């Protein structure tokens, strides 16, 4: 069984995001980059499937040089090798451009299964896997919280999280699955894993080798134009209630928690 995991490197969830002066992007210098947290579930799932059914696991990632760090983390967790879509031409691709590039890298691998995170925690669009499935003409199951391999080894039964419950779907391979929290407990990379990872292959794939043209990807192809990014509004100062009767203050607090904060 051949499994491809699509991986994205995103800012750490705890990173403080600052906008560039022209509001067209974010300051990247002081950001700590990590593997997109949802992609960890995809990597873990790929490793578990390989441990049980054998085969090969390949991690595919698009981005500048720094993304190899996230790829090495996946390799240290146990993935076999990587393909790194690396070309200035890929920069500023929208979801369609990104999916086209990934599809170009994945197609020659003829995988049985493609695993992605349910969404990347930076832009939160959750579009790439869906477009990828269309481009590769594969079925897709999104937001998978449980996966059972079929007895034939060529299909799976997946539970999807939906509003208020779960949907159970059977899917035939090759397919694209997006992985949600709860699907598994991602492992830590091990020290021997880290030492082995440095010897594993990460194949760079430029625009020319991908078979795409400059019009397919990057800013040129982007159907989405970002006008500007806005910073999060400053957190309003806390409200303090004092010097009143306690029951009165409790009433006011409960009212505000309900109507303004909307948390109860």
């Amino acid at each position, binding site marked *: 069984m051949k499994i491809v995991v699509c991986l994205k490197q995103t800012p750490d969830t705890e990173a403080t995001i600052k906008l560039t002066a022209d509001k067209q992007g974010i300051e990247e210098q002081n950001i700590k980059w990590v593997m997109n947290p949802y992609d960890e579930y995809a990597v873990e799932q790929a490793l578990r499937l390989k441990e049980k059914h054998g085969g090969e696991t390949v991690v595919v990632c698009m981005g500048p040089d720094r993304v190899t*760090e996230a790829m*090495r*983390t996946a390799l*240290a967790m146990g993935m076999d090798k990587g393909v790194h879509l690396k070309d200035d031409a890929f920069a500023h691709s929208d979801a369609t451009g990104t999916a086209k590039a990934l599809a170009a890298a994945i197609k020659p691998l003829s995988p049985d299964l493609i695993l992605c995170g349910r969404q990347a925690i930076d832009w939160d669009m959750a579009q790439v896997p869906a477009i990828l499935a269309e481009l590769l003409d594969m079925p897709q199951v999104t937001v998978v919280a449980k996966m059972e391999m079929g007895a034939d080894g060529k299909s799976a039964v997946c539970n999807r999280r939906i509003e208020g419950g779960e949907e159970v779907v059977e899917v035939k391979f090759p397919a694209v699955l997006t992985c949600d929290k709860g699907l598994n407990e991602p492992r*830590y*990379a*091990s*020290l*021997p894993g*880290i*030492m082995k*990872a*440095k010897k594993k292959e990460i194949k760079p794939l430029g625009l020319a080798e991908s078979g795409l043209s400059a019009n397919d990807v990057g800013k040129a192809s982007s159907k989405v134009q970002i006008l500007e990014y806005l910073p999060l509004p400053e957190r309003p100062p806390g409200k303090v209630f004092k010097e009143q009767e306690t029951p009165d203050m409790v009433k006011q607090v409960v009212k505000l928690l309900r109507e303004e904060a909307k948390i109860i």
Partner: protein
Amino acid sequence: MDFDLTDEQKAIRELARRFADEEIAPSAKERDEKEIFPDEILKKMGPLGFLGGPIPKEYGGAGLDYIAHAILTEEVGRACSSVRTTLSVHISLAQLTILKWGSEAQKKHWLPRLASGEILGCFGLTEPDTGSDAANQKTTALKKGDRWILNGAKMWISNAGKAELAIIFAQTDKSKGAKGLAAFLVERNTPGYSTRDIHGKLGMRSSNTGEIILEDCAVPAANLLGEVGQGFKVAMSGLDHGRYSVAAGSVGLIQACREASVAYAKERVQFGKPIAGFQLVQEMIARMRVSEDAARLLVYQAGHLKNRGRPDTIATCIAKYFSTEAAQQAAMDAIQVHGGYGYSNEYPVERYLRDARVATLYEGTSQIQQLIIGRHETGISAFV
């Protein structure tokens, strides 16, 4: 000179940082309070290779270089000094000593089991009446046929109550003094071997410390580690590694003090502004940062010598002396920054101080480190 870490060293820092934050730090307070040994954490560390980092792969270790080994130790020390102590003894004092002095058969037999965490190791040098003057061992070893009969007691031994294997130092011939010493690999299940836990420690309360009692303990001749007469050298080479690990752990502790102090100082408001804005508070934070960097560089300098296989005893003593004293100062300052709140265990800094306290005592007190450095500088031994 290259001050950049390699990609692997960075990845190891990242892995260790995450593991320390997610798996070690959350339980540190409770383990300290209730004197709970970190069995569960060790169980998770084993499969990740954390319990045999610098041991070569052929003996079941991860084959880390000594800088990477220090980085991992720092991160563990940042989260919990008790877990770090357990590792310092298990890896540096026990395994690295066997790696250096063990026969091929001894290394093949013991190292994979220790490095995987299947069993824990300990290092029995200190005795009730023998501390800094370590050459003055009262424990005796007498050869009887193909066995050595050990009698005596070891005191303040980390991991004593948990270890399946102890390196025990003993005197084979009193008339020879230090030249009569020998080291032995003693298994817990040897008849005549028993341990007693020590409770009520000021710090390192989640680490296990105990006494080892040896009563006509018959050890096979094949378990002699090194040769008769080499015992003191075996002990000192073990301490070269143990002190390195303590120093690295202390760097992590200083970092923990700095991070806790910076976070608290930015939030605590007095006189209408965060206390981080007061120069006298910044002075303490600056001191922590400077000693953290200086200690780290001293550790990496000793690590570099270890990687090159060059003599590192003095560099390691310097790193251990500086880092452990600086860690104590940093913990004192951290409590000062926290004010009264730092005095309660609602914040971790009081534990940092109690834990830091022992590091200037064990593996050679600060005075002993000074005497070793002083002897090196003057050519005159002040020990006798």
